């Protein structure tokens, strides 16, 4: 009886404290922005099963991933035992769930095994943390408190496992000694009990009781400590995975309040009419903790500071200040600081500090290449790039602040429709020296027809001297395959990708709406493009603005033809050469297109060499996120040199690429390393055209 009362009191206190914590956090959530409607429940369950319960992202680092997976699965199983303990504690029963029979034996048995497995795993983790120097546990954001937090949490879990093992050993040992039936199965503990000399039913029972209380009280304490620790992820990880972003990583969310304004501006009748009085008071982008969408705050609470994101960040790897982990930790810390102040003094309260600059510097924000390695790596699907871009959006749209070179890019896109200063009249110069004429869609329109495909050349294809050769190679292939296509020629204008990645949502939407208008006027339905950035934006982002097309990347397109036997590629000039493939971030991680390029490359080479970091692990070339157009932020090394070195380590004589930016970076990298004489960077289109002898 007393036991039940004491237990009930303990439970009450625990729940009380927990309720206080939940209320506090709910208050913080109320300060954030709505957005992120939770739909597609079925698909979400699927993601949850795969990523959370299947631990697929954790297994990206196989060995230590296995250790974590075991701990997680152990926790899931042991959870049942803990639920039973609460019921037992309140009702005064003993092993109340044992009526489940065989299933109960399975639960308890596996729970028992896991107790020891988890304990060993935790010991491995502790040893690793304390004695080994693991790079991703370090960083300017990893202060002493983080390390202590981790050690405490791990120690508590170890205590939980030891107390569970003790419980089971005491229970099984005691029951066997006194000849009573054992409810459930405890294989390892039973064996362990057998090893204990000089035991009695009483001492075993004491062991059981002590460990029982230790275990459940530790759970109560742990449960209330977790929300204030980095291990909040124990509660939040599975829900966070359920709430994952389901769209391709390459897609950025549309700012609908900007769309309204842009449409007004593009309509000459309203352009200078007095503005409707609904100039939104709401801030554009994110400056402080309350500006984030609730899901982003949820992300920051779920983050356990594992640092896998930072360890794959190309900026961080090369010594720049940016650390995706720090971005999430800073958001959490800032809300912890400002949340209570706003809850108490109202949402407009200002403490003259901000997430921007006081926590996250502009230098960090401008170092991001939007390669999505962090989001891909995160075991619980946190999306860091969206927060980084949202903060860029604030800088550009509210403060008109951006690195000087990017302001020039914005002006160029606005004034002459390309990131560099070139006249749109020159957009067909690349097609000059071909021995056939590249069809213009305006010619089709004049004849009253439309081509099947629009081949979108892009600004690099039109103006970048090296990449013009790629576009030429590709139309030769299109010509060879007798594809019914046309280009827009001088009517092309920038898709707006560099503007959007750099946070200039307004300029992006202006460009996008313009392009959509042109597409509409020509009845464009299918688009082929060689540039992954253009591909990504057409496929994933233009639909939000009313432009939906069938968008296909040239490698998908050509692979289809190759598989259907309509494009016969043979190894030819590449035979005997070591070839490697560099995954463009906007084709790979952003859109998960890894296989088609490889299928094509296999046909071209009869077998190529992969770089160490390839596929979804591929290292960015360093040009994305508008980095191409600006000076790199301060760091130890340039990203493109890091990647080129990796390609050279693979022994590559030919580096195959599939993006104009990657090509610029890799070609520069080869020059830097003085390997121009024996290493070449060629685009897949060039390799294919070559093999067809075009």
């Amino acid at each position, binding site marked *: 009886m007393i036991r039940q009362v004491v237990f009930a009191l303990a439970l009450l206190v625990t729940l009380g404290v927990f309720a206080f914590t939940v209320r506090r956090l709910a208050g913080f959530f109320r300060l954030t922005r709505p957005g992120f409607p939770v739909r597609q429940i079925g698909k979400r369950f699927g993601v949850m099963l795969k990523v959370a319960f299947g631990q697929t992202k954790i297994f990206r680092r196989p060995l230590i991933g296995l250790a974590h997976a075991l701990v997680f699965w152990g926790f899931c199983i042991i959870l049942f035992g803990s639920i039973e303990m609460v019921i037992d504690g309140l009702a005064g029963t003993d092993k109340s769930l044992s009526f489940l029979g065989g299933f109960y034996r399975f639960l308890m048995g596996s729970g028992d095994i896991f107790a020891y497995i988890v304990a060993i795993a935790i010991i491995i983790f502790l040893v690793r943390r304390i004695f080994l120097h693991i790079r991703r546990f370090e960083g300017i954001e990893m202060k002493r408190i983080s390390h202590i937090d981790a050690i405490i949490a791990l120690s508590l879990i170890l205590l939980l496992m030891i107390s569970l093992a003790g419980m089971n050993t005491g229970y099984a040992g005691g029951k066997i000694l006194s000849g009573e039936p054992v409810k459930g199965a405890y294989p390892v503990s039973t064996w362990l009990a057998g090893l204990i000399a000089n035991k009695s039913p009483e001492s075993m029972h004491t062991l059981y009781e002590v460990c029982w209380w230790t275990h459940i009280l530790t759970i109560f304490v742990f449960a209330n400590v977790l929300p204030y620790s980095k291990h909040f992820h124990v509660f939040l990880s599975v829900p966070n995975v359920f709430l994952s972003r389901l769209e391709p990583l390459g897609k950025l969310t549309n700012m609908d309040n900007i769309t309204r304004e842009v449409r007004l501006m593009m309509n000459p009748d309203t352009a200078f009419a007095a503005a409707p009085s609904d100039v939104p008071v709401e801030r554009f982008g994110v400056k402080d903790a309350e500006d984030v969408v609730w899901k982003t705050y949820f992300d920051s609470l779920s983050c356990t500071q594992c640092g896998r994101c930072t360890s794959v960040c190309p900026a961080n790897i090369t010594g720049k200040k940016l650390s995706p982990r720090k971005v999430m930790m800073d958001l959490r810390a800032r809300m912890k600081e400002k949340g209570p102040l706003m809850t108490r003094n109202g949402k407009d309260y200002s403490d003259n500090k901000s997430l921007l600059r006081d926590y996250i510097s502009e230098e960090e924000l401008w170092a991001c290449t939007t390669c999505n390695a962090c989001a891909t790596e995160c075991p619980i699907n946190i999306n860091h790039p969206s927060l980084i871009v949202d903060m860029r959006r604030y800088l550009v749209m509210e403060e008109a602040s951006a690195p000087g*070179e990017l302001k*020039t890019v914005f002006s160029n896109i606005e004034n002459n429709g390309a990131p560099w*200063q070139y006249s749109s009249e020159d957009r067909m110069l690349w097609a000059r020296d071909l021995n056939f004429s590249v069809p213009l869609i305006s010619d089709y329109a004049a004849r009253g027809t439309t081509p099947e495909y629009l081949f979108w050349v892009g600004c690099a294809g039109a103006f970048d*001297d090296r990449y013009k050769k790629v576009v030429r190679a590709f139309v030769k292939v299109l010509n060879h395959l007798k594809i019914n296509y046309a280009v827009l020629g001088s009517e092309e204008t920038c898709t707006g990708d560099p503007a959007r990645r750099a946070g200039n949502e307004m300029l992006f939407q202006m460009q996008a709406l313009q392009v959509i208008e042109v597409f509409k006027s020509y009845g464009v339905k299918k688009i082929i493009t060689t540039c992954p950035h253009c591909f990504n934006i057409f496929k994933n982002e233009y639909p939000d603005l009313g432009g939906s097309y069938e968008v296909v990347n040239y490698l998908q397109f050509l692979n289809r033809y190759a598989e259907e036997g309509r494009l016969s590629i043979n190894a030819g000039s590449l035979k005997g050469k070591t070839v490697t493939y560099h995954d463009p971030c906007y084709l790979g991680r952003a859109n998960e297109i890894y296989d088609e390029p490889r299928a094509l490359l296999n046909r071209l080479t009869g077998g190529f060499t992969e770089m160490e970091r390839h596929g979804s692990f591929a290292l960015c070339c360093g040009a994305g996120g508008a980095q191409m157009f*600006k000076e790199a932020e301060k760091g130890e090394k340039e990203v493109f040199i890091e990647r080129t070195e990796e390609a050279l380590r693979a022994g590559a004589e030919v580096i195959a690429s599939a993006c104009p930016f990657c090509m610029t970076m890799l070609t520069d990298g080869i*020059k830097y390393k003085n390997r121009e004489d024996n290493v070449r960077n060629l685009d897949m289109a060039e390799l294919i055209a070559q093999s067809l002898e075009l």
Partner: protein
Amino acid sequence: MSVLVYTQNWDGRFKKSSFELVSYGSKVAEMLNTSLVCLSIGAVGDEELRKLGNYGAEKIVRVDNEYCKILDNQVYTDVIAQVALKEDARVIIISNNSEGKAVAPRLSVRLKAGMASGVSKLPLSLNPFTVYKRTYSGNAFAHMVINTEIKIITLSQNSFDLVETPNRAAIENSNITVDSSLIKTVVKDSQKQTGKLLLTDAEIVVSGGRGMKSPDNWGPLVELAGALGAATACSRPVSDEGWRSHEEHTGQTGKVIAPNLYIAIGISGATQHLAGVSSSKYIVAVNTDKDAPIFEVAQYGIVGDALKVLPKLVEAVKELKK
């Protein structure tokens, strides 16, 4: 009537551009069948002034008193206007340099004299008075008509050859005065640049790229720049590698310059680099790759090894400057 040329002096000395102005003015005077008067403001010695006579100045008016020590636009305008009226000047010629740009427009309003700036040829016709001037940043030229009795022309630097004439110059010391209430400019500090020529100011720039292979090879390039009185620059990879100072980086993300002459040594001409130098009046490229994009924008090119070519260029320049 006369043609008046205002020749600026630098610490009492004239430059090549001064003599270009006089040569030009002399030809215009010839076209108009009148005499050429030169105006000099400030302390310039007789011997220096007489040099103007070598290019056609017949009368040289010297105005030198306390209020001419610093450039006050109103003061200088007043002086030139007074002299112009006194000499019954019909055409006033001033250099299109910073001082010319400061003073000529005021003079135009003062005398209600139509003005054409950035002229690079002798008048195309006298009736109507038509000049050839630069527009659209060099993408076009205009035949501009000046409809007033007095005309002002500012001459682009480096656009007219020197023409020597027998010297018949006579120096006249002017005694015109300026209303003291006109003097409003106060100079608080003056910083004369010593030594290094600013890249963005330089008329000639010699620039090196990765084709130079190593920072140790920069000697001849610096020598060439020195011989030409040029500033040095470099492409991005070179500054990134630390071979040359960041200050020298020209290109889209570096400095954007528009010198009269840009000599690119071992630079391929990537888009980003060209974005920084394409407004140069003349581009010369030296590169081992005949297909390097730089040759598409260069007027002169040498396909060869920079390290072998540079010493030859240095020698040729030294010969020239003798």
